[in-house]
């Protein structure tokens, strides 16, 4: 064993109890956990499809089992019922989005009544099963993802089996649903699938485009099911690794999605430069937006706002706006469309004067700083100060303490009060609770703080009132994530409101006045 290394191989085959102990230091991040959770659900869904059709399949081992195609059909029918809602939501969003497909607008009417030229069996563009194929769909615009090999095989099979009827005239469309981008050895083309209603049933029409020529088709039941399956695959198979976020202008996508290094470009931007560009997040589902920000090393803050033009849960705008260069770890405010649009706008909650908006933004910063500082001098102190926690000692009937070196109680108090004003007595509680003098030596209260509700975000929402030298704000605390909580009964995400005040100093700077730390300290 050399000086720099430590070989912990002996822990590899530890017993279950030791494993639990090691697991306390599990390093997986939220993004990794989400990825694994999505993976587990995907495998689970595949297994369930199999066992529904074949009761006696033993589900164990990691051997990959390739399903017969007909089983997928049955499963798709069942899955459609479940995810139909999600897709419909995405379609609503698509309505407001005309720039994405900017081929010349077709002129004729219903595909069913359009004169057809010929019907062919088999895919008119050749077999795509061995091609490189990407896709985009209503549910996750403006992103493009790789089509997984399983999905591609099924799609190609269906395309080859289905009947394609070429139309001599263009059709006006219902909502476009799924777009496939096929690389075709450097001569790429795209297929846009549309749904339309005819004779009480839904049918599918297809627009082919290679950037120059456009052709129109309708497809039979087999092709329709393939398109539906693609939409579902998009909803469940989305792998963030292969995802490309498209940027405007959305022209010439046929070629653009294959531009080399498109995906690498995104990553390198995030990794090399100290400054990061704020990505385009408007009209993106806010959970997806959060992941994008995290991947770029940016922090976020969510503000819910009512907006009639953006579906609930989607981002209305960001602050700073897209394209702005910001330092890594900067906080980006995501304004997310809230569900209850009418009530909010009636209350005038969303109408904030420019002056107040400035105060609120400044208060938000101070509030976050206050949380951080309060924790720094409280439970997180060993990360910042020289505290000998490994030799902590318990007094008889007293707290467990650790010696603090290199700083005095007065210095600590002074530093703490650089942020916190002494107008409120409770602003002394953190220092008083955590620090003791024992044998003439400064000590820190040592102990396991226990498990906390996980604070996802805080939002200073409005100015409540002002006095000569103090401004009171309303702040919302969102406890909306229970991933860090073990053994909790029926946890529902919740939001609490609280009052927060800043005291204006003689030099016009602000200090924290009334404050309750939303993170237990």
């Amino acid at each position, binding site marked *: *064993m050399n000086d720099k*290394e*430590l*070989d*912990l*191989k*002996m*822990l*590899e*085959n*530890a*017993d*279950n109890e*030791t*494993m*639990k*102990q*090691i*697991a*306390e*230091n*599990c*390093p*997986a*991040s939220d993004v*990794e*956990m989400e*990825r*694994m*959770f*999505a*993976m*587990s*659900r*995907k*495998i*689970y869904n595949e*297994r*369930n499809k199999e*066992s529904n059709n074949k009761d006696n399949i033993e*589900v*164990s*081992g*990691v051997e990959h089992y390739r399903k017969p195609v007909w089983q997928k059909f049955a499963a798709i029918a069942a899955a459609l019922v479940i995810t139909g809602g999600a897709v419909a939501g995405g379609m609503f969003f698509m309505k407001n989005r005309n720039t994405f497909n900017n081929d010349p607008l077709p002129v004729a009417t219903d595909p069913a009544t359009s004169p057809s030229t010929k019907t062919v069996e088999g895919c008119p563009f050749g077999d795509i099963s061995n091609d490189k194929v990407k896709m985009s769909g209503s549910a996750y615009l403006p992103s493009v993802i790789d089509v997984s090999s399983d999905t591609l095989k099924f799609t190609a099979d269906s395309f080859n089996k289905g009947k394609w009827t070429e139309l001599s005239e263009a059709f006006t469309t219902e909502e476009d649903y799924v777009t496939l981008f096929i690389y075709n050895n450097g001569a790429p083309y795209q297929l846009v699938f549309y749904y339309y209603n005819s004779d009480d049933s839904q049918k599918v029409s297809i627009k082919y485009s290679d950037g120059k020529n456009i052709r129109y088709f309708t497809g039979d039941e087999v092709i329709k099911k393939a398109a539906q399956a693609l939409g579902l695959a998009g909803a469940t198979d989305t792998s963030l690794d292969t995802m490309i976020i498209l940027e405007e202008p959305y022209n010439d996508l046929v070629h653009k999605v294959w531009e080399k290094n498109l995906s690498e470009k995104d990553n390198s931007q995030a990794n090399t430069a100290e400054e990061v560009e704020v990505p385009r997040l408007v009209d993106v589902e806010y959970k997806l937006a959060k992941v994008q920000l995290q991947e770029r090393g940016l922090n976020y803050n969510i503000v819910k706002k009512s907006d009639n033009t953006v579906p609930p849960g989607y981002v209305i705008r960001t602050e700073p706006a897209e394209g702005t260069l910001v330092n890594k770890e900067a906080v980006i405010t995501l304004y997310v469309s809230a569900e209850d649009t009418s009530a909010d706008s009636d209350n005038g909650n969303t109408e904030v004067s420019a002056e107040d908006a400035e105060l609120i933004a400044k208060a938000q910063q101070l509030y976050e700083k206050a949380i951080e500082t309060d924790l720094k001098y409280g439970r*997180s102190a*060993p*990360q910042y100060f020289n505290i000998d*926690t*490994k030799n902590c000692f318990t007094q008889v009937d007293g707290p467990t303490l650790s010696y603090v070196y290199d700083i005095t109680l007065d210095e600590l108090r002074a530093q703490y009060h650089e942020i916190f004003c002494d107008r409120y007595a409770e602003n002394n509680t953190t220092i008083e609770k955590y620090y003791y003098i024992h044998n003439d030596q400064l000590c820190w209260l040592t102990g396991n703080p226990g498990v906390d509700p996980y604070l996802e975000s805080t939002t200073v929402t409005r100015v409540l009132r002002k006095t000569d030298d103090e401004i009171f704000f309303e702040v919302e605390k969102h406890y909306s994530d*229970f*991933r860090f*909580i*073990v*053994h909790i*009964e*029926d946890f529902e995400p919740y939001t609490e409101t609280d009052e927060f005040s800043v005291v204006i100093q003689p030099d016009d700077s602000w200090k924290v006045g009334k404050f309750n730390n939303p993170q237990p300290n």
Partner: protein
Amino acid sequence: MTHEEYKKTYKRSKEEAQRRIFSEYFKYVYTIVFSRLRSCASREDIEECVGDVFADVYIYYDSSKAVNDDISGFIGVIARNKAADMYRKLTHQRFTFISVDDEDVPEQEAPENTEADYEKKELRSSLMNCISLLGEPDSTIIMQKYFFMRSSKEIAEKVSLTPEAVRMRCSRALKKLREKLTAMNISL
């Protein structure tokens, strides 16, 4: 999570029910899988294996078998088996029986109550004890760096320090740990 709770949550949302199981046992499963595969698998393989384990666990809950509150023992067995499968797949071992002389094969946990087993357990618990005595955040840094093989940058995010501070603390903590281990006459 009891089966009763699972069913209740399941009625409201299947995903939520599964997420609760996942949250409860994730660290444990990840650690077991990682332990077995850390020498040979990529992170992607490990993540796939973890997903695979949980897929089985969900099915187990679905099938009404999970009547106990704590099924970590059972989950541990699934995790160990899946990881072993993956290990074989990755190291291209075609046969499930393995030579005891083969040095590449990690040792299997010996049957209980043997002397060797007891000694190893003691050694492990002493080691874990020494590491935990380093205090936070040093013990976390040491475990994440040398067992979970994370970079200083990744650890920095977890413990809210800068990567430089992590490196600094890490080398100091390592020195302390070595002193402790030497004092206890443990060599790794």
